[in-house]
C-alpha cells in the first residue's frame, strides 16, 4: 500500500468517525468539534490526492488553504452562536425559576 492510499483511507475513516460522532451526540460544542474533524478528514484526503502526481498538485493545496479559512470563520461564528444561545437559555431558566418560587425574592 502506498502512502497516498494510506492517507486517503485514514482521511475517509476520520470523516466517517466524525460523522458518527455528529449523529450520536446532542451537545452543540461536541457536534461542532465533530464537524471540524470531518473537515480535517476531508483536507487529509485532499492533501493525499495532491500527491498522486510528482511534484504534488498545487491546486489541491490551494483548495485546502481556502477551505481552512472558511472552516475557521465558520467555527468562530458557530462558537459565538452556541455560547450566546447557552447564556440566553441560562438566564431564561433562572428567570422561570424565580417566577415559580414566590418565597425567594432574589431575582437575577
Amino acid at each position, binding site marked *: 500500500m502506498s502512502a497516498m492510499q494510506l492517507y486517503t483511507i485514514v482521511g475517509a475513516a476520520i*470523516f466517517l468517525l466524525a460523522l458518527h460522532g455528529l449523529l450520536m451526540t446532542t451537545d452543540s460544542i461536541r457536534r461542532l468539534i465533530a464537524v471540524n474533524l470531518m473537515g480535517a478528514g*476531508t483536507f487529509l484526503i485532499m492533501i493525499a*490526492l495532491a500527491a*498522486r502526481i510528482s511534484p504534488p498538485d498545487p491546486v489541491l493545496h490551494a483548495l485546502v488553504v481556502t477551505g481552512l479559512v472558511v472552516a475557521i470563520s465558520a467555527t468562530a461564528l458557530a462558537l459565538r452562536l452556541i455560547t450566546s444561545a447557552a447564556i440566553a437559555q441560562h438566564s431564561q431558566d433562572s428567570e422561570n425559576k424565580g417566577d415559580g418560587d414566590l418565597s425567594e425574592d432574589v431575582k437575577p
Partner: protein
Amino acid sequence: MTYALVSLSVPLFCALLLTLAGPKLDSRHAGQIAIVCSALSLVAAWFALMQMAELNQTILLELGGWESGLAIRLRLNPLSSLLLLFTAFMHVLIGVYAAFSRQGVSRDFWPLSSFLHGSLAALWLSADLFNLYITLELLGLTAVAMVALAGKKAYKPAANYLILSLVASLFYLLGVALIYGRYGSLDVVLLSLQTQSDLLTRIALLIMTAGLMLKAALWPLHLWLPAAHANAPTAVSALLSGLVVKGPLFILFLLWSEVAPVDLAQQIGPVLAIAGMIALVAGGLSAMRSPYIKTLVAYSTVAQLGYAMMALGLLLTWQLPQMHVALWLFVIAHGLAKATLFLAAGEMQATLGTKRISGLRGATQTVPVAMFAFAVAGGSLIGLPPSGGFLAKWVLLQPLLSEPQNWPWAFGVLLGTLVSAAYIFRVVAISFDRARINPPDIRPDRVGHWLALLPALMVWGMALTGDWLIQLLAGSSV
C-alpha cells in the same frame, strides 16, 4: 457579460461599504443605500438578460486572463441572467418592505442582505465546482447570521442551522476533491466532456448530492428547515425560503445535467423524482397539521421544493428540455409567492398578536389586505390559473399527460396540488370565521400589508410574460 458583472459587484461592494460604515449609519440610511444598490443591480441584470435574449448563447469569462483549465471561469447564459434578475428583484421587493413596514428590521439586516445578494449572484454565474463551494459557504454563513437577527430565541436554531450547513458543505467539498482527484479539473464545462460512469465518479456524485439535498432542504433531508425559517425575522424568512434554498438546487442541477455522464443521470432521475413526489405529500401533510402560521409556510416550502425536485428528476430521466423550463419556472414562481406568504404571515402575526392559525379567525375583516395577499400567493402555490405557479405546473404536466405510461407521475403532481389546496384553504376558511373574531392588538400597518401583497401580484403577472419566459428558458436548455 459586463452587465452581469455589474449586477454581481454592486451588491458586494455595497455590503462591504455598509459593514465598514458600521454604526455610523443609522438603519434608515443603510436601508436606502442597500435598496438603491439592489435596484442598480436589478437594472444591470435586466440589460444582461436583454443581451442574452438577443444573442441566445453562452458567454464564458476567464478571470485574470489565464488560459482555460487554469482560470476560474464565470459563465453567463439565459438561465443565469434570468436568475440574476430574479434575485435582484426579490431583494428590491423585500428591501422596500423591510424599510417601509412598521415591523422593520435592525441595522445589521442591510449589510447581510447585500452579502446574500452578492453571494447568490456569484453562485448563478460560477461554472467551477470549487467556486460554487465558496459561494455555497458564503450563502450559508450569511443566512445563519440573518436567522440570528431575530434575537436570543433564534440563537439555538441558528447554531443548529450552521452546523447542518457546515456538514452539508463538507460533503460537497469531499465530492469535489474526489472529482478533482479523478479528472484533474474543476471547470463544469471541461468536466462535462471528460466524466465517465466509473465507481469513483458515482461515489463522488452521490456524496455531493447528499450534501446539496441537505442544504436545499429536499426530502428526506428537510427537517432543519421549519425551525430555521420559522424563527427568523419576517423579511429574512422571505429571503431564505424564496432564494437561499434555490442556490444548492442550482448546483444540483448543474452537477447532474452537465457534469454527470448521461447514463448516471438517467439512473438517479427516478430516485429524485420519487423523492420529490414524497416531499410534495409529506411536506403538505405536515403543513396541514401545523398549529403555527409561520411553520405552515415553512413546511409548504418543503412541499413546493418537491415540484422542483420532480421536474429535475424527470428532466434527468427523459433528458427532456421542457422539464428544464418547468423547473426554473417553479423556482421563480415559488420564490415570489413564498415572499408574500411569509410577509403576510408576519404582518398578520404582528397585528393580531398571535402565532397560531386558530388566531386568524375573522382575519378577512380585521387584516383584509394581508389575508388577501396570503390567499392570492396561496393560489399560485396551488397552481390556479393564471398565476406563475399554474404556468410552471402546466409545462410540467403537458408531457406527463400526453403519454399514458407517465400517468402515475401526473397523479403525483395532482395529489400534491390537492394537498397544497388543503393547507391554503384551511387558513382561508378560518379567516372567514366572522362569528368569533380575534380582535387586532394594534392598528394594522397599511403600508406593510400592501407591500406584502406586491410579490403576489408579480407572480400572477408572470403569467402575462409566460410565453417569453418559456422561450427564453427553452433556448438555454443544455
